[in-house]
């Protein structure tokens, strides 16, 4: 199986994928997977949009409210101390999972908030906030922010807005027709003017896994900061942010078995400590006068106001679940199902899969166009069979424009997805064009 250049994670296939019996055990932890829709069993193939949540994670949140709930990082009574310990232990769990230090983990509501936090902190630095130490985050006309053509809107629009506010220029690295980054172009575009490189680790549409090590090397050469959007990689690949040597990373809990409303912004400690805050208020200060305030070091300087404590606790339980499953094996399983999706779809007439062709490395998803049938109609047909997929532009309009499409249908897998489900999906897709009377 082909692998992406010099990505620091081992190629898929060195850890065994799950046995079907193991997947059946996972499924027992997700009662929702046992329900039916439209009178047929649910086939959930939309985990890239949001994953399902196992009972243990639900129980962790419930347990916190039943036994430990109190305001964290501000009270001195026993319950407050216990709640704070639990909250900070959750942070340490995430740090361990991501190969980072606890001080480098900032809770956010999701990856989108993490990206906006960064963009607004850079914006504040550009206005002179944070003083000399924050100059490295300040942007001005002539500076460049570089993204890629395959970004989710969440890793595009905050940078567009930052460019508008600071006068910096936004540039992008184009992709090949096979949905891989043009590294030759990256080398040309990432230059002396580049201050920020914001790139997705794995594409939510193409399934491509980007060569982070190569991109970081290009950015280091010119002293640019690197932000990694790990939304689609953290749930599916072992991740070691220190080893990847990125400056910042964002991810969303709800895509990796946790509830909605909780995410993480990772930042190298010395960067976070030098960066001016975005949201300000309670719990993020040392001293406050009527005129001004001094701020706590990271991570608390970025956590103004009451935090999502129970969700953080649940998120920690979710990553313990993933660790117990083994992230190398999760990767192997997703990779195997991803290949099965691509190979199966490629065999069908009138189907165009976007992204790397069969045999090339991809995460457990495949987005495709059905000739003559709009994605919305494909999704409706599949839903009638109980199959839940995502249709539309998947928050990546520029990418779809590049591919010459307005919408695609996307199937995505996770550790609880069975081979039978993938096959049921493929059989249903095979019938779509006939149903809609498309023959050519």
């Amino acid at each position, binding site marked *: 199986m082909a692998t992406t250049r010099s990505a620091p994670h081992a190629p898929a296939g060195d850890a065994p994928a799950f046995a079907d019996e193991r997947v059946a055990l996972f499924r027992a932890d997700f009662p929702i997977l046992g329900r039916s829709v439209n009178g047929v069993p649910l086939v959930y193939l939309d985990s890239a949009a949001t994953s399902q949540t196992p009972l243990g994670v639900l129980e962790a949140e419930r347990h916190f409210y039943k036994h430990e709930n109190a305001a964290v990082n501000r009270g001195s009574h026993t319950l407050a101390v216990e709640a704070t310990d639990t909250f900070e232990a959750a942070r340490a769990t995430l740090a361990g999972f991501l190969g980072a230090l606890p001080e480098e983990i900032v809770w956010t509501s999701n990856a989108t908030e993490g990206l906006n936090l960064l963009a607004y902190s850079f914006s504040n630095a550009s206005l002179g906030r944070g003083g000399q130490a924050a100059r490295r985050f300040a942007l001005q006309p002539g500076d460049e922010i570089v993204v890629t053509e395959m970004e989710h809107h969440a890793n595009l629009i905050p940078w567009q807005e930052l460019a508008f506010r600071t006068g910096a220029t936004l540039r992008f690295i184009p992709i090949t027709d096979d949905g891989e980054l043009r590294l030759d172009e990256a080398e040309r575009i990432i230059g002396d003017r580049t201050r920020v490189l914001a790139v997705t680790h794995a594409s939510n549409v193409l399934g491509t896994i980007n060569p982070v090590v190569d991109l970081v090397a290009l950015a280091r050469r010119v002293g640019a900061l690197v932000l990694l959007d790990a939304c689609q990689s953290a749930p599916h690949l072992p991740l070691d942010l220190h080893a990847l040597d990125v400056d910042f990373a964002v991810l969303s809990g709800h895509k990796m078995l946790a509830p909605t409303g909780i995410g993480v912004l990772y930042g190298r400690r010395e960067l976070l400590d030098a960066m001016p805050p975005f949201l300000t208020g309670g719990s993020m200060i040392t001293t406050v006068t009527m005129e001004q305030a001094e701020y706590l070091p990271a991570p608390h300087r970025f956590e103004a106001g009451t935090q999502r404590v129970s969700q953080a606790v649940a998120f920690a339980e979710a990553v313990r679940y993933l660790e117990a499953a083994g992230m190398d094996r999760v990767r192997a399983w997703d990779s195997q199902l991803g290949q099965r999706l691509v190979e199966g779809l490629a065999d069908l007439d009138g189907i165009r899969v976007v992204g790397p062709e069969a045999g090339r490395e991809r995460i457990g998803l495949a987005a495709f166009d059905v000739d003559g049938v709009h994605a919305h109609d494909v999704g*409706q047909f599949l839903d*009638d069979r109980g199959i839940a997929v995502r249709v539309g532009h998947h928050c990546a309009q520029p990418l779809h424009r590049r591919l010459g499409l307005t919408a695609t249908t996307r199937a995505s897998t996770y550790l609880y997805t069975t081979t039978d489900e993938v096959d049921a999906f493929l059989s249903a897709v095979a019938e779509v064009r006939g149903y809609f009377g498309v023959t050519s």
Partner: protein
Amino acid sequence: MSELDSLYQQIILDHSKARQGSGLATEPAPVGARLGESHQINTTCGDEVTVRVAVVDGKIEQIRWDGDGCAISMAAASVISELGEGEGVGELRAKIETFRELMRSRGTVEADEDVLGDAAAFSGVSKYPARVKCAMLAWVAVEHALAEAEA
């Protein structure tokens, strides 16, 4: 008829392929007509339609449109194009309102084929709330375009 078949009735599939009134550039607007145009986007799926209406003495002479989208949205544009031409502005407005009520009915309203013609075939759409916007897209565009033509 299965639920899915009631959504995708043959009339709808036919209209989605042989699109009546499709092509803004294929035929110029009648000389002397009052023109109105509207561009509508379904933000959830990216479907879009641009509709142009030409009104002469309170009567709709022509409805032309360009669009890209699902079978439901394209068929709905085709149907209103066919249904609207030759109608008085007031009459078509009333039909749009009738269609809107049908779409919002969640399957509780019986479509009157005498009033809605081929549009009656969309009654199955009302049971799929996520698709009602698709069906309404071109109809809302016509409504806006009429308002512009009459302004």
